[in-house]
């Protein structure tokens, strides 16, 4: 065990002295939390600001005083649409739907001919499309009001038109609503851990082999398992360090939230950070062993980097499983490394309690895979030195 400790200390010192790589890894892992939160809160704040502004962009609204009156009564303000609104909506430089009113609106309304209004938006322009929905809702209200007035004039109770009444009820808790916005946070933390361990994993295996220091190392009486354990311990420590930094960076990161709604909904305290870590630390150890196992068979750092893109790609495609799987969370998700952690971190963000079984299953899978990968590296070490 003494030899493993010596290797661990040396590898850790070696990794920590690679200042440039370390600075990039630390910067990305520490900055990732606050940066993501700022970006998200800016997005939500924009949604909120737009919802509060209650502006309608219209063309020819002066020809429709009745409609104008209705809209103003609903506390909306009217704005003239720019002349080139159609092109701007298509190019997505103008994020509002535009209401086009015909010149004969008032006359048609008086004559009992339904005037034809046009609501211009583009389905590729999400912001305009979103606004078109609320405008359409608003215009249905105008329609109902006019119809009710006409029925009253003919002595018919307007209530007859309403066969049913619908009350909408949103059952999602605030934390679950917030989790819709923060869904990508666990993924970025996971990737930070993976990239944090990547360089150290390659340097201790393929890098060692490339610079010709693996052969002399194997000529010492230190057992191979001790060499591999020491190396794995150092790589896993770097990955775990990145996990700790990125998880705890969310705590001060919350101060930067611009959206009050989001900051009220996104509750990430020390408990959540610790739960994240309980999930991420075993994964960091497993990913370190896996990266080393892939790299040990490679002759150079570059080759190892190319081969490990498969691991990076596999981990980055994990969110796709949840995206394509419309059936929601499946029991097998917890058996797949990275997917299990993503699923459970999402649950933590949604404020759900995690049971011991939820934590133990991914831990056991990570432990078994780590042991297999470490054994594989130990087995390959001598062959790697001689190739």
């Amino acid at each position, binding site marked *: 065990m003494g030899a493993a400790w*010596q290797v661990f200390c040396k590898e850790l010192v070696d990794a920590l*002295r690679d200042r440039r790589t370390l600075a990039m890894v630390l910067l990305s892992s520490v900055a990732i939390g606050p940066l993501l939160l700022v970006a998200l809160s800016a997005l939500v704040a924009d949604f909120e600001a737009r919802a509060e502004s209650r502006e309608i962009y219209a063309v020819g609204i002066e020809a429709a005083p009745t409609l104008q009156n209705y809209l103003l009564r609903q506390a909306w303000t009217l704005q003239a649409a720019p002349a080139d609104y159609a092109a701007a909506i298509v190019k997505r430089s103008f994020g509002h739907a535009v209401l086009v009113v015909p010149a004969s609106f008032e006359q048609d309304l008086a004559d009992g001919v339904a005037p034809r209004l046009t609501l211009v938006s583009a389905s590729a322009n999400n912001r305009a499309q979103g606004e078109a929905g609320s405008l359409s809702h608003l215009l249905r209200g105008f329609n109902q009001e006019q119809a009710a007035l006409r029925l009253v004039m003919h002595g018919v109770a307007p209530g007859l038109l309403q066969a049913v009444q619908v009350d909408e009820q949103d059952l999602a808790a605030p934390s679950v609503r917030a989790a819709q916005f923060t869904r990508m946070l666990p993924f970025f933390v996971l990737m930070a851990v993976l990239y944090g361990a990547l360089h150290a994993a390659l340097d201790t295996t393929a890098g060692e082999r490339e610079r*010709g220091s693996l*052969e002399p190392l194997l000529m*010492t*009486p230190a057992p191979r398992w001790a060499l591999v354990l020491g190396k794995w311990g150092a790589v896993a420590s770097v990955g775990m360090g990145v996990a700790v930094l990125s998880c705890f960076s969310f705590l001060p990161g919350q101060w930067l939230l611009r959206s009050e709604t989001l900051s009220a909904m996104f509750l990430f305290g020390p408990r959540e950070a610790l739960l994240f870590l309980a999930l991420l630390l075993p994964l960091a150890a497993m990913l370190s062993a896996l990266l080393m196992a892939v790299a040990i068979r490679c002759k150079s750092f570059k080759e190892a980097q190319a081969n490990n893109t498969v691991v990076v790609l596999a981990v980055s495609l994990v969110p796709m499983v949840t995206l394509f799987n419309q059936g929601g969370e499946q029991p097998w998700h917890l058996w797949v490394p990275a997917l299990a952690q993503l699923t459970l971190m999402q649950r933590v963000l949604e404020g759900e309690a995690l049971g011991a079984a939820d934590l133990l299953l991914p831990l056991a899978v990570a432990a078994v895979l780590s042991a297999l990968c470490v054994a594989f590296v130990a087995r390959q070490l001598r062959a790697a*030195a001689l190739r």
Partner: protein
Amino acid sequence: MIEVQSLARRFITGWGRRARVMDAVQSVSFVAADASITGLLGANGAGKTTTLRMVAGLLVPDAGRIRVDGIDVVARPQAAQARLGVLSDARGLYPRLTARENIVYYGRLQGLGAAAADARAVLLADLLDLAPLLDRRTEGFSQGERMKTALARALVHDPSHIILDEPTNGLDVLATRSLRGCLRRLRDEQGKCIVFSTHIMQEVERLCDQVVVMAGGCTVALGSVPELLARTGQTDFEAAFVQLAFPAAPASSAGRMSQAAQGLPAAVS
């Protein structure tokens, strides 16, 4: 003392029909005594590096026996490795560690305490003229400085046996002379058993107490330089080597063949 008996090692590369079998070492035997320098002399591909790797416990032989001070290397590799200081063909250093840290790291892996490993690093730095470089990171070291650091690393645990695989490769004249002086001191003052491989005749003539001539993975001759000269009836050791290693070659082409083996232009000789 290192005893090597009828050593053999075969490599198989590729699979199925494309498999290639190469008998790197077929029958190598020699005994390297304590307080002496034994040179394994052979052309490229003669099996020198494979033999030394087997002696160092890095490769397991298919047949034969290797003993270091009576310890069987195959049966007890770690006990044998503790008595060996090996400067292999691959002598990579850790560029972000200082020369001292590189040496001490190996000392710790050899089982020395921190203070003892550091004391050995200082001692070896003096022996190898490495003292001014000891606390510099090895990144940017010259070839000679790298070799000296690697040698100090191999000797940190004060092994009784030293194995060097083509130690003067890439060294300039001064560094080569300095290394030769160092090996002589280790033999004469500390009684080390030194085995090194080379294909440079000059090195063997100047340094070796005993020469093991290897060709095609076999030991073809064994003895001191004067003994080998007497056996072949040559006055030039290069010609004697070619006669021993390549018996089919005519005597007149001996010089040319050895030049070709060393990659030297004919005019240099």
